[in-house]
């Protein structure tokens, strides 16, 4: 349903051109939840924004296609894209306080989509908003309709965001770290809500996060990004329990909650790469334990592996060995 092909996003910054997204390809099927994982600066948010066409002013898609239901979105004008945003695709943001218009009543913000896109009049749109508020679990919707965002708690605001995202029955919802700013208990609630809504309405998700357990909870497939590129894709279970890329391995080992083998927390040494002048060859090689000479030199596109997975690592067998060693070890 959504097919992103070889996407490149460049940002014009003071000190050079930042290659924020460098050749990323993704597919999302109908009803599927895809996780997009990586550190800050890996390009995952930019990918999402590029898909919806809401990149910041200095960023541009310089190559690639974003095909939604057979239509390439990249060459479309902003007004054309506006017709897609809402009814076909919508987005949820990380920081609900700053992502909601502070001077507009919450109910009106939810109702805005239907008014603009579905041609509802105010009364009908308000009804729809109330219905959505109930669906996402906001108590006392009639009262809360007229409230302003600052009168809500973080978790409630996020529910409002979800209601907004759902308001025009989109086919796919892009989630940009929606739970990162929330307490753990609230996080759990929101994730369950999202999972339920997905199951009920068959809406697809692309779920961006740096938090592996979250991905495990809600997604079927996952793609791992590093330095603006994809390094591994596959089913969640496979990728997290049996990683085929050193970076994924590192992520898994440094995450406390993933149901891996009982392991001690091992952070990944070094720091994220410069996206202006990225390392040659495999971008992860400066921090990689298994790096060899060819890693420095050869380009590393994703290559398919059996079982619906792909990896960019030239020496992924080393990962398999390390995983096996972890299992045997103490």
């Amino acid at each position, binding site marked *: 349903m959504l097919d992103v092909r070889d996407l490149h996003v460049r940002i014009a910054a003071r000190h050079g051109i930042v290659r924020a997204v460098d050749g990323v390809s993704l597919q999302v099927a109908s009803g599927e939840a895809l996780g997009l994982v990586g550190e800050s600066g890996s390009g995952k948010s930019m990918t999402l924004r590029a898909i919806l066409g809401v990149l910041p002013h200095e960023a541009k898609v310089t190559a690639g296609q974003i095909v939604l239901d057979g239509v390439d979105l990249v060459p479309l004008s902003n007004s054309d894209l506006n017709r897609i*945003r809402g009814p076909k695709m919508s987005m949820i943001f990380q920081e609900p306080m700053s992502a909601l218009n*502070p001077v507009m009543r919450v109910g009106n913000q939810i109702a805005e989509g239907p008014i*603009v896109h579905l041609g509802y009049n105010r009364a009908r749109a308000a009804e729809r908003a109330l219905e959505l508020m109930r669906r996402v679990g906001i108590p006392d919707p009639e009262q809360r309709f007229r409230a302003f965002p600052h009168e809500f708690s973080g978790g409630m605001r996020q529910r409002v965001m979800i209601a907004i995202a759902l308001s025009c029955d989109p086919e796919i919802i892009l989630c940009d770290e929606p739970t990162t700013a929330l307490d753990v208990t609230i996080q759990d609630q929101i994730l369950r809500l999202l999972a339920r809504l997905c199951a009920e309405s068959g809406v697809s998700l692309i779920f961006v996060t740096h938090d592996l357990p979250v991905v495990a909870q809600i997604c079927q497939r996952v793609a791992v990004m590093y330095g603006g590129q994809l390094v591994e894709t596959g089913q969640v279970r496979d990728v997290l329990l049996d990683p085929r890329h050193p970076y994924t391995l590192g992520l898994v080992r440094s995450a406390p909650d993933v149901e891996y083998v009982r392991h001690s927390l091992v952070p990944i040494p070094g720091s994220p790469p410069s996206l202006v002048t990225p390392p040659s060859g495999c971008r992860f090689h400066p921090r990689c334990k298994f790096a060899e000479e060819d890693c420095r030199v050869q380009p590393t596109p994703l290559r398919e592996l059996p079982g619906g997975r792909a990896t960019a690592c030239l020496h992924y067998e080393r990962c398999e060995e390390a995983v096996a060693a972890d299992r045997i070890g103490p």
Partner: protein
Amino acid sequence: MGRMTFVARRLVMLVPVAIGVTIVVFFLIHLIPGDPARTILGVHATPQRIALLHKQWGLNRPLVSQYWLFMDRLAHGNLGQSLFYGTPARPLILGRLPPTLWLIVYAAVLAIAISVPLATIAATRKDAVRDHLVRVVPLLGLGMPPFWVGILLIDALAIHVRAFPVSGYGNGFFGHLHAMFLPALTVAIALAPVVIRALRASMLNVLGAEYITTARSKGVPARRLFLRHVLRNAVIPAVTVLGINIGFLIGGTVIIENIFAVPGIGQLMINSIFRRDFPVVQGVTLVFGVLVVLVNLLADLSYAALDPRVRFDR
């Protein structure tokens, strides 16, 4: 605390300020050198006549008791008697108030009409050529003496082109609209630079905000996005700036009224100072002070009305 309480509280806070103003005004005016009696009698001044007028006007009493008299009258809404005209000051002042109010409101409207488009043009393409062009406007505008601008405008649009009258207030609503255009424009040109800057700055802040991205991601069309999301948020800080500067401007109307011969309280003030007409000067200064405070109050109220995050328990 509700809005009514807020307003009431602010009005109450007006009182000590107003009293302070009256004290300063009173003692200031009586420092003005020169004797109003002598000025008014002119050629016919004789010591007896001067003494008589002094007695009539209470000018021979000690200052403090004159002040008490003033305050007492004030409490009854009496602003005293104009020494020059010999008529009660209050109707004189209030009669001259409408042109000044016209000037202020008209100027504010024009300033907004100039500033909003310019600020929008600048903020929507930051650092582009048009942004830099707009940013030059405040740099030049801040340095323009308003009376100079007024003179040039008169020359260009009232003398060379004869589109507007050189002076005066006009008759009827549309007459006022026509006659007051140049003076209001002059004041607006003085106001606009600051408002443009403030609006541009707050627009840039708003444009970079997350909720604008949210609105975009909802597919909100450009015009609605601009009006209901961008502008609606951007005006909030600008309103405060406008309010503060209108406060300053109220005093500046004095000069503009003079240049354009607008029969407002500014003209009255200047003339009364020159004529040493103490009660009128006091009265007008008091009115000015009240106006400034009211305008600031209005700005605060607008701010609170526009921004639901503001609470009233300050």
